[in-house]
């Protein structure tokens, strides 16, 4: 339907279909439906619910900042923040350098690398739930518990493991590190193998010792992946749920209650209807915190990377 005056055909629905607009939309449908119903809408609903008082029976009522205030006023909240930070810091100290060291050592082995890689990755293969349940048996605090028996061989008295507020969190971190380190080792291993060997050659020409080669060639080459695994680990440990839930249920006396566990308790612990407003408010607070942390982190590391 072109007139002499128009060069391009007018955009009608028919031309849109003919140009493939409809089929594009058809291809986008799965994503639109799935994301729309199960991702975008719930995110919006989460924000809305955090400003409401909801049980599932009556219509929700708007309460402004009351949920956030209630969370901040809850002493368990501050305990959870402290515990989560403690878990994250411990996990960083134990679990961050360890896979790197192991990967560097592994990358230097020649014959046994395949076997060692398999051994390192084995704990990652078993179901996380099974890993926790197995370690729960290991952590039996009686003198006949598995770990206590082993300690007994070295003359160390039996430890309370998860039965004592002081040792509970470190016990959880130990298991979490065991279960997750293997995956990081493999990632580092792949990154190590992609370090250009010429760099080592060059360093040797300059007379570098082994340690200097590691420090001045290996680590800088790995900088990118190291920065990423660091922030990923912090984000993941900030949301730890499985270990506190299955090992101790948050005890002893809230020593292992983390933020995620608290959100779960707010939402699902009361048979008469959960405090959904508080649960969503707390989850939003956590999300905002992690977002800010990530932005600050990337700003800082970008400056370091470009030097």
């Amino acid at each position, binding site marked *: 339907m072109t007139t002499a005056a128009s060069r391009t055909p007018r955009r009608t629905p028919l031309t849109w279909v003919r140009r493939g607009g409809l089929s594009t939309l058809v291809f986008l*449908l799965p994503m639109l439906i799935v994301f729309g119903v*199960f991702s975008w*809408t719930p995110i919006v609903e989460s924000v809305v619910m955090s400003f409401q008082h909801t049980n599932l029976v009556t219509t929700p009522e708007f309460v402004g900042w009351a949920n956030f205030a209630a969370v901040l006023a809850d002493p368990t909240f501050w305990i959870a923040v402290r515990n989560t930070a403690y878990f994250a810091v411990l996990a960083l100290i134990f679990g961050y350098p360890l896979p790197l060291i192991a990967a560097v050592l592994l990358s230097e082995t020649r014959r046994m690398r395949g076997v060692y890689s*398999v051994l390192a990755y084995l704990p990652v293969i078993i179901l996380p*739930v099974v890993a926790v349940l*197995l370690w729960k048996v290991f952590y039996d605090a009686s003198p006949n518990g598995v770990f206590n028996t082993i300690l007994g061989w070295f003359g160390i008295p039996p430890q309370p493991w998860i039965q004592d507020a002081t040792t509970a969190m470190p016990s959880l971190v130990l298991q979490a590190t*065991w279960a997750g380190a293997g995956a990081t080792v493999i990632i580092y291993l792949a990154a190590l193998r992609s370090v250009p060997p010429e760099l080592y050659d060059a360093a040797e020409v300059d007379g570098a010792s082994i340690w200097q080669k590691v420090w001045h060639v290996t680590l800088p080459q790995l900088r990118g992946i190291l920065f990423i695994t660091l922030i990923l680990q912090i984000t993941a440990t900030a949301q730890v749920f499985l270990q506190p839930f299955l090992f101790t249920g948050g005890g002893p006396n809230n020593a292992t209650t983390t933020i995620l566990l608290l959100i779960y308790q707010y939402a699902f612990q009361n048979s008469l209807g959960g405090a959904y407003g508080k649960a*969503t408010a707390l989850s939003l607070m956590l999300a905002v915190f992690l977002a800010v942390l990530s932005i600050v982190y990337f700003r800082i590391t970008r400056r370091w990377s470009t030097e």
Partner: protein
Amino acid sequence: MEHRVTTTIPADLPLQEPVQAERIRRRARSVRTRDAEDRGILGIADRRRTGVRTGSTVINVLLGAALVVTGLLPLLWLAKSAITPTQDTLMMPLRLFPNGVAWSNLERAWNDVHIQNFFWNTIVMAAGSWAVQMVVATTAGYALAVLRPAYGRVLTGLVLATLFVPAVVLLVPLYLTVLHPPLIGHSLINTFWAVWLPAGASAFNVLLVMRFFESLPREVFEAARTDGAGTFRLFWSVVLPMSKPILGVVSIFAINAAWADFLWPNLVLTDIAIQPLSVRLPQIQSSTDLGVYLASLTIATVIPVAIFLVFQRTFLSGAGLGGAVKG
């Protein structure tokens, strides 16, 4: 990131003899390639030094011992305890069969605990999640990266935004959505769809696939178009066959995530008949004899470990690739 690129050839090679220089360069290059194959931090010269050799052997042995202790021994203990009578496991956990073997544990894990049913549920759950994720990721990636509609930027942005939202934010409203899904009459609780559908909303998968499709040469698409291929044909017969590597990576992530999921299935799958292993095993802990329980854990571990051992290369390279891709 800048590279300080030097070569092993002295920099002050006389320029008047290019041929000779070329021959030296070629020889050096072949030496270098040999080096490149088997050198890491330690070079050939390093490995010749006896100090380094003994040191590296010692470290090798220690590393191996550490890996055996941490990686292998716990699983061996589990397997041993699966066939040890409960009282022995409680009283003398590290002795080897002081009172004989209890094969009945395995039998009861099979017949009383019905571990195989929960295994099957886990497989079904993982398979469905995988399928939904593949469908969503490939179709969305194709539409956004290959077809590139005008509004594609907006959608990509929306998808990217969800990447930064931690899963916990969705927990409560997603649960309520599954309870009262739009359009469908009844709740999806206690159906596998409650797990499959939300699994598809993975921004990571979509972006991975998008990046890959964007890196495919557009000339191939143009050629197919001029050959008369329609949108669907292009997807099915051109793009997908070229995408095997990325589909493999996405598959590994998808199945891994589905397999390990605990919190969400625990919430939405309360009917025992369809619970996967990760939900069922903690629940029966208090009502199952320890020996039988450990036997159940063993059965739940044996198959993934066996699959891993058979397909190690795929797993390990996929895991490493994941890291490289993330980087």
